[in-house]
């Protein structure tokens, strides 16, 4: 029962379909070579170890074949020679709203994040192309010792904290796209929460792509020290362009003993975006890592948030919603690697396929022989709207050892014509009836979201469904 009125975030997909002509102070040009990497490292003034890390990654990226033996062959359509790997206005992350350039403010405006919501957005880091253009941390956070910076600043100013875990949860060679990100990463958030600090309000970042053929390779690393707690929210919209845009992020989470990290993504890419993201969390003894992941839009999304439960009593959770329209393929899932006894994991995945849209679930649940009392619960529900839609489920479950339990449930359902008629007879348009049905399908998951995100997500679903009837 939704009695509470919620603040209007008003982040709508159609208003994301625009871009501004922006002149970039630093532009690495198109194509990818060692020179590109030197350019990026020079502009950023990076330490030598970072430059070496990038170069090593470039080699791995070039050597690794595309994973097309299991993944979509659409990946072959990405032309790496036509992508710009680094663009920047040479901005330092802004600390106050007044320092934010006008056209960027305008972007926020179009995204429905008006200036008057500054107070609400305090503590928000929003990325405009490569560099964090707005970064304002509430004073109380810094008082608590929380570090919330961009990736460049993180590696430069706080190597003693971040270097230890950087590239460790997701090594360079994890997959071809983690290697690409490791070579050319820029932007993203680096966060450290000191022991016992529980960050009350969620930290947020909004990412946008604003240049044609510009791949966005943000890099995020969040470390919650012992007993610390943090929620991070990421929302994405991208302007529409005719040629393909590549987004390939790497997000690493480290939850030390007893820590809790919750990472929430609502993603709404335009339908020319390849969204190839690697996300993984490490949960030590008694720690908890929870991914909430919503994928709407994009041409191809491949994303399988994972949790490695390395300490006893650790807990991993992935709640995901994917919505695939015509010409869209949401290839998503979860990986739960149980690496200690008494660990539990939970996966709830809901997908909606509309028209020719295609949703694929891939899951990995691993419990090796020497462990005991590990538990996993997996639920995959698919909703088909229109007979042409396609949905596939590929669960890979490896369970050995004693007293480990795994439960897997899958369901496929359809929105029936009679249900839509019933709703229309009450005065809802066909689009509204569809939206409400889809919202009903994902409702129990959306309840897990912070209020403002659930509102935003419902609005995105409404917009998606409006265009899908006719």
């Amino acid at each position, binding site marked *: 029962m939704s009695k509470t009125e919620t603040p209007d975030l008003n982040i709508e997909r159609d208003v994301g379909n625009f871009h501004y002509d922006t002149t970039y102070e630093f532009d690495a040009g198109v194509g990818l070579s060692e020179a590109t990497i030197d350019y990026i490292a020079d502009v950023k003034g990076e330490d030598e170890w970072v430059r070496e890390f990038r170069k090593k990654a470039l080699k791995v990226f070039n050597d690794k074949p595309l994973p097309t033996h299991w993944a979509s062959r659409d990946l072959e359509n990405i032309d790496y020679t036509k992508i710009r790997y680094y663009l920047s206005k040479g901005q330092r992350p802004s600390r106050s709203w007044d320092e934010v350039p006008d056209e960027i403010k305008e972007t926020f405006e179009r995204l429905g994040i008006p200036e008057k919501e500054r107070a609400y957005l305090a503590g928000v880091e929003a990325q405009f192309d490569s560099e964090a253009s707005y970064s304002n941390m509430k004073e109380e956070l810094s008082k608590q010792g929380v570090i919330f910076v961009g990736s460049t600043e993180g590696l430069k100013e706080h190597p003693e904290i971040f270097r230890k875990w950087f590239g460790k949860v997701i090594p360079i060679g994890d997959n071809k796209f983690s290697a690409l990100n490791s070579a050319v990463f820029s932007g993203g958030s680096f966060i450290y929460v000191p022991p016992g600090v529980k960050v009350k309000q969620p930290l947020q970042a909004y990412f946008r792509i604003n240049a044609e053929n510009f791949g966005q390779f943000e890099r995020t690393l969040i470390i919650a020290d012992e007993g610390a707690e943090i929620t991070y929210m990421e929302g994405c919209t991208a302007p529409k362009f005719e040629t393909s845009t590549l987004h390939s992020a790497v997000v690493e989470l480290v939850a030390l003993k007893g820590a809790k990290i919750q990472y929430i993504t609502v993603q709404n890419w335009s339908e020319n975006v390849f969204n190839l993201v690697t996300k993984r969390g490490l949960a030590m003894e008694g720690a908890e890592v929870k991914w909430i992941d919503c994928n709407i839009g994009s041409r191809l999304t491949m994303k399988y948030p994972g949790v490695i439960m390395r300490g006893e009593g650790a807990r991993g959770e992935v709640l995901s919603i994917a919505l695939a329209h015509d010409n869209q393929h949401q290839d998503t899932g979860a990986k739960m690697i149980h690496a200690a006894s008494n660990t539990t994991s939970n996966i709830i995945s809901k997908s909606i396929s509309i028209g020719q849209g295609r949703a694929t679930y891939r899951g990995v649940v691993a419990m090796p022989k020497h462990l005991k009392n590990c538990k996993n619960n997996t639920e995959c529900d698919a909703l088909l709207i229109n007979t042409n839609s396609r949905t596939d489920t590929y669960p890979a479950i490896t369970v050995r050892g004693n007293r480990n339990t795994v439960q897997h449930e899958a369901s496929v359902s359809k929105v029936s014509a009679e249900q839509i008629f019933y709703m229309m007879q009450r005065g809802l348009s066909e689009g509204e009836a569809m939206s409400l049905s889809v919202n*009903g399908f994902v409702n129990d998951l959306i309840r897990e979201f912070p209020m403002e995100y659930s509102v935003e997500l419902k609005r995105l679903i409404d917009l998606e469904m409006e265009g899908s009837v006719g």
Partner: protein
Amino acid sequence: MSELVIKNLNVSIGDRPILKDFSLTIPKGEVHALMGPNGTGKSTLAKALSGHEDYEITSGEVLLDGENIVGMEADGISRSGLFMAFQYPSEIPGVTIANFIRAALTARLEEGQNFSAPAYYKELYQHMDELKIDRSFTSRAVNEGFSGGEKKRCEILQMAMLKPKYAVMDETDSGLDIDALRIVAEGVNRMRGPDLGVLVITHYQRLLDYIVPDKVHVMWDGRIVKTGGPELARELESRGYDWVKEELAEPVA
């Protein structure tokens, strides 16, 4: 013009004609009962009036307070003021009753109008109490796992909240025990008044003991063949439909 006028309505399902020059006028403020055996087209009438796309209106008019609603989409017809209480209400998984009715009301708001949540809940609870629907049902998904009686009471609840000008109740009595029947009938009776016209479709006299109609129509083979007062329903109850059939066989002027 405050009436629902159905004029020479012809309706087919596929190639099969079901309603044949069906005509009926329901003035606002009146309750009419439409009776008749299975397969004479009663439910077809309800679906066709509501704009269901499987029911093709080949000719005729339906004037709702003067506005022809033939050819309108189901949602437009609903917003024009025609409500149908379904014989078999659909389940809407995950959508709560409170949210569903709220969405239906919001769809009726005109530009500049705002939805008042406190007033909404006040009214919703009042109707729920009257219909003896537990308040916890607001957070239950529409019709999901409901008993027959709960579903029908939920239909009446929606009708009470949406305040239509005309309501078509398609065999609302089917699947109801006597207590539920009484609750549903009382709900309808509370709404009776100068602003509402009702067409009650039923097989049985039973419901009409509680919702006493102003007029009773008997339907046969796609059209109305006999019209009378409440006593006609009682006559049908005691004599069955065969005598209507026999009467029909005789030459009528």
